[in-house]
């Protein structure tokens, strides 16, 4: 009814879903970065730990970075137990997020198929599938005939023959803007200040303890600060005197013009390095690997774009008649093992939730939940202990990049 009423009034009567706050002089916790992770962290701090004197500082507008540039996939079919348990916690939170936030995040658990194109790849795929099942996450092997039934437009006998694959049926897509706005509205309602157009320009650190942040809108005191940004993580950390094991690259995605429903699963191929799904609006959403070199340009290179399109068209020849509608790129922070950097830093009171590389969207609920726990208690949440910043010094890498053969 409100939709109908607004339609008659030219949609001029909608009220903002959250307060666009002015920064106060001090908070209990300052969250740097108004993306999904930062807003979720603030929300769970307020809801689970009763810490409501919290500010989220965003340089631009909330959800304007990688939270709005991803391809909306959430899944938990990871090889290593540390990753699988963390991402499955995230997927479970996603499953109830719409009800929890009272905001329709349009979660569609349509299932994700990972393709194998040779007998050797099929063996590795079976090993991967078994590892996922050992981690107590749903996963099953599929025959080519089963894949054809689930994904009708796929070409089984083309340049990249499909000899099998596995599927996580609980994997799916959701609406990324809704996740950001849902967390923002819920956090704001619990008293969190969301401050946009507020860039952090420095940290106040005394005796190895963080005391606050300097921003483009004045100094803000806080004994607990969490860095929850992407793209400029290295530069933000450098303001606190930290060097992060991060390389920033461009990751691109693209969509075709919308068509009627034709593909109701997500299809990924690691060896041709492309994936495709169809959005609720009907667009075919395509993505692939990051461009090969360091980049802050927020635009993808043509060779990677061409490789992605070629791979998708070999798998789905009928898509060749679709026109490309949009193409974009995000700055992704790739770590040496493609797992995130989460938890404590050498500076007391300064926490980190960065380095999500090409896969931060699926981790938003668990990232917020576990970081809120870590900030409130001062002890890393058990699920994120393996992703500590000092794992490189200890040699305890969580090498998902090597496990999957691709960055993710």
């Amino acid at each position, binding site marked *: 009814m409100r939709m109908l009423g607004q339609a008659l009034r030219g949609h001029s009567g909608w009220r903002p879903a959250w307060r666009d706050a002015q920064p106060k002089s001090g908070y209990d916790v300052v969250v740097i970065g108004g993306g999904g992770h930062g807003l979720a962290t603030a929300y769970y701090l307020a809801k689970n730990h009763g810490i409501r004197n919290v500010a989220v500082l965003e340089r631009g507008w909330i959800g304007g970075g990688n939270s709005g540039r991803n391809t909306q996939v959430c899944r938990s079919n990871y090889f290593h137990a540390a990753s699988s348990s963390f991402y499955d916690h995230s997927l479970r939170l996603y499953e109830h997020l719409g009800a929890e936030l009272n905001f329709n995040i349009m979660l569609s658990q349509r299932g994700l198929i990972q393709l194998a194109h040779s007998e050797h790849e099929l063996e590795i795929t079976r090993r991967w599938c078994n590892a996922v099942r050992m981690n107590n996450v749903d996963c099953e092997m599929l025959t080519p005939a089963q894949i054809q039934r689930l994904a009708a437009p796929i070409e089984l006998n083309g340049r990249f023959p499909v000899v099998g694959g596995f599927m996580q049926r609980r994997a799916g897509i959701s609406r990324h803007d809704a996740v950001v706005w849902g967390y923002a509205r819920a956090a704001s309602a619990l008293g969190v200040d969301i401050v946009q157009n507020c860039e952090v320009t420095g940290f106040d650190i005394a005796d190895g303890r963080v005391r606050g942040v300097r921003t483009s809108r004045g100094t803000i005191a806080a004994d607990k600060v969490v860095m929850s940004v992407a793209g400029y993580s290295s530069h933000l950390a450098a303001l606190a005197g930290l060097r992060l094991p991060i*390389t920033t690259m461009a990751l691109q995605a693209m969509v075709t013009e919308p068509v009627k429903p034709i593909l109701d699963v997500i299809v990924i191929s690691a060896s041709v390095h492309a994936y495709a799904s169809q959005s609720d609006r009907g667009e075919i959403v395509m993505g692939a690997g990051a461009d090969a070199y360091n980049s802050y340009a927020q635009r993808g290179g043509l*060779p990677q774009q061409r490789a992605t399109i070629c791979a998708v068209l070999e798998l789905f020849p009928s898509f060749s008649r679709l026109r490309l509608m949009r193409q974009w790129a995000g700055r992704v922070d790739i770590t040496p093992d493609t797992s995130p950097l989460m938890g404590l830093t050498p500076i007391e009171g300064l926490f980190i939730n960065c380095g999500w590389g090409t896969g931060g969207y699926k981790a938003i609920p668990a990232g917020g939940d576990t970081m809120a726990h870590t900030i409130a208690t001062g002890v890393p949440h058990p699920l994120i202990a393996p992703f500590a910043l000092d794992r*490189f010094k200890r040699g305890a890498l969580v090498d998902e990049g090597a496990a999957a053969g691709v960055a993710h």
Partner: protein
Amino acid sequence: MLRIACPYCGERDEVEFTFGGTSHVARPSEEVDDATWAEYLFVRDNPVGAHFERWLHAYGCGRWFNVARDTLTHEILKVYLMGDPKPELSRT
């Protein structure tokens, strides 16, 4: 599309080359502590602007060389040989 001037073959398209990461990373002695060794293995400068990096002309002469490239604009600022010192750039 980057156009990279291989010092041996001349200017070619980016697709002929393989990126080799940050250049001028010096290996420390084996006596250093774990933190220094981890820094050498895993931590690189991640600059906005001029980045000194290695490229391989994989589908050409097969030789390595250095490139100074702007990571924000992708402009190639200088091409120089392996073993050459890090060049001074008139602008960064």
